[in-house]
């Protein structure tokens, strides 16, 4: 049998079982609108790429990592000093985690500024916000795993904040810590969240998110629609495969280059092993993506009137998170008209707050 004959038979076998032709047809007809803001579309893909990197490097780290207070720090030290390219794997894992959260934020704000959350994409927005929440959960749980001084005390501060939530605070903190204080039980728990619970939830939600993106196609900014409607022209489209896909691939390669450079030139530091009996070192602070709320809480006085300052801050953040998550539901008025100024103004204000307070939190 000739080569082409074998290919045809193997292809036919898979076609019968998987229906690949329909996927091929879908890919052939899927298009991406081309306009001045098309490049923002790449950030969702870059975030996905970084997530895949996280999974791959995370699996490699799992081969050596041991989630106990006695061995966690030493096992990471072993990975970065003794395991061949262990330093690279660990450094890429840490850097890609941070870059992933950065690109997820960029993706989220681009969605807001391009109005991609509008009807009928409310569920796409909600699943995206939930994915960002899970990414932050990955960051918080993964931060403790090396069991170094900074991560230990940052987790103490973080779980203390959870404890100040009214009614359920103490239960929530106990659930997170697995006891009264951050210790071995917390490490095991955070490890479980980090490698099993969060990846499971994220994979599921990611499928939903990507499925919704496929279902509704890529959103077009309203001003582009208006522009082409006025010109009585169709909006230019680019075939998703291979044109957009190859461009996305280029973006992934650029991300890989940035990631590799950061990992090689600035390997992620391991720090000193955590000592639960030592006092917290000066200038302890969380990862950069928690700096804005952290610095805000620092600025709030211990009591505002008769209410505890920290509680007030947490209440404010909860309101902000709920309001932001509900964005698609208040972005249009009852007549269905877009509240463009309100949405853009809110997004700019939130972005300005996050950038300014993160920088202040870093430098002060």
């Amino acid at each position, binding site marked *: 049998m000739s080569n082409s004959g074998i290919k045809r038979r193997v292809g036919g076998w898979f076609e019968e079982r998987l229906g690949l032709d329909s996927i091929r047809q879908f890919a052939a007809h899927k298009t991406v609108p*081309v306009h001045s803001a098309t490049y923002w579309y790449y950030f969702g893909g870059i975030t996905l790429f970084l997530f895949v990197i996280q999974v791959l490097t995370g699996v490699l780290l799992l081969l050596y990592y041991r989630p106990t207070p006695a061995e966690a720090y030493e096992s990471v*030290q072993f990975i*970065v*000093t003794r395991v061949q390219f262990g*330093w*690279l794997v660990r450094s890429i894992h840490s850097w890609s985690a941070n870059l992933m959260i950065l690109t997820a934020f960029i993706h989220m704000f681009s969605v807001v500024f391009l109005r991609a959350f509008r009807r009928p994409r409310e569920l796409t927005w909600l699943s995206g916000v939930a994915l960002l929440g899970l990414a932050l959960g990955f960051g918080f749980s993964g931060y403790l795993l090396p069991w170094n001084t900074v991560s230990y005390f940052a987790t103490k501060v973080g779980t203390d904040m959870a404890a100040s939530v009214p009614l359920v605070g103490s239960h929530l903190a106990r659930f997170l810590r697995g006891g009264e204080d951050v210790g071995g039980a917390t490490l095991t728990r955070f490890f479980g969240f980090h490698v099993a619970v969060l990846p499971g939830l994220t994979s599921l939600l990611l499928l939903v998110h990507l499925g919704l993106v496929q279902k509704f196609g890529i959103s077009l900014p309203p001003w582009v629609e208006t522009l082409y409607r006025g010109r009585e*022209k*169709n*909006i*230019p*489209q*680019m*075939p998703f495969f*291979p*044109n957009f896909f*190859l*461009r996305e*691939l*280029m973006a992934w*390669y*650029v991300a*890989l*280059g940035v990631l*590799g*450079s950061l990992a*090689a*030139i*600035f*390997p*992620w*530091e*391991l720090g000193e092993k955590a000592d639960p009996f030592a006092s917290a070192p000066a200038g302890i602070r969380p990862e950069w993506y928690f700096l804005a709320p952290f610095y805000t809480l620092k600025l709030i006085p211990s009591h505002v009137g008769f209410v505890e300052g920290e509680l007030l801050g947490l209440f404010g953040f909860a309101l902000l998170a709920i309001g932001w998550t509900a964005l698609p539901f208040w972005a249009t008025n009852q007549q269905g008209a877009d509240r463009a100024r309100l949405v853009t103004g809110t997004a700019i204000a939130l972005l300005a707050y996050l950038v300014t307070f993160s920088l202040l939190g870093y430098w002060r």
Partner: protein
Amino acid sequence: MIPQTVFRNSLASILFLLLPIEVLEAKDSCVECHGAMEGNLQAPALGFPTDVHQHRGFGCADCHGGDRNQDDPELAMSRARGFLGKIKRTAVPQLCARCHSDADLIHKFKPQQRVDQLAQYRTSVHGKKLAAGDEAVANCVDCHSVHNIREVRDPLSPVHPLNLPETCARCHANQTHMAKYKIETNQFQDYRKSVHWEALAKRGDLSAPSCASCHGNHGATPPQVGSVAAVCGTCHTLFEELYNKSPHKPVFASMGMGGCVVCHSNHAVLAPSDDMLSGNTAVCAQCHEPSSAGGKAAAEMAQSIGNLKAELNRSEVILTRARRSGMEVSEALLELREGQEALVKARVAVHAFQISSVSKPVSEGIAISRETYRAGESAMKERGFRRVGLAISLLAIVATLAGIGLAIRSIEGKGQETHE
């Protein structure tokens, strides 16, 4: 304007009102009357509310005698009722010892308090001179204050560790006061230059030595030539052990020189440095000619310590560079600490004044520092390898990007370009 007497009387009344209830319950006509007086007669009553004795329930009459329950001054200060009046300076130690040497009484308040202060005082220079009738020497109240005596641990007490040097200096830095004893008055000035003062006053280390640590407190006496090393050795144990076995001990003893202080001085104990061994500031050169056996031994010890310092420094530089470049060298840095400990041991070993004692820790330290230097070199090599690897990877990425770019151009050039 409020007249001064009214102000003082009011102040005394306020202080009186601040007295604890149990004291208020017990009548004390001494405080009542003296609080309303002026000047020296009022001063004891003003200071007394902060006095530890007052807090323990003792009153003026417990030292001065008399009857504090009497409102009539004649009766309150009646000799018939045991009134002693102003206590003679020579009688003060004995008076204080009435209680402070009474273990049954003192241990009611402080179970671990010593009761041998008077016995010790009698052995001191102060005590001996006082016994000989010299009223100018220090007795209990000169150091502990009078009528406002605070516990030693009270930071306002003149004998609190932080205040003690200044308290001793009140007399010992006073040229007029010291003239008749022919004692120098530069001790406090010298002490303030010392590492001990630095630790005590600047770092707030209350365990740092001050006057009483070397001279004793109640039994204050200058350490004799033969006992200097033992005095310093109470803290610097290892140094004392080495010195006692060293060839210097019998020589210094025969020359009437006081051990440690020959090289380190007594009150102005400066931070020791390796330059004390050789060079222009070498203390060894005070006795040993550079060409003599002692001079040569000192130079050799200085040389080997200098070598170890240089090796450790070299390792530290390379490891710091590697760490700043993000390389994981914490194990090597930890090892380097052991090398630094060997340097400390070598410096301590100098006090045996034998080359062989110094050579051992020096060679151990040099072996460690060479090993850590190799770790630093290998970390720096690894850094170079990583950077070369990164450069190759980046080139491969750029080539791939160019390839994809060409592929896009080729696809879009064949008519599959963006369409409306």
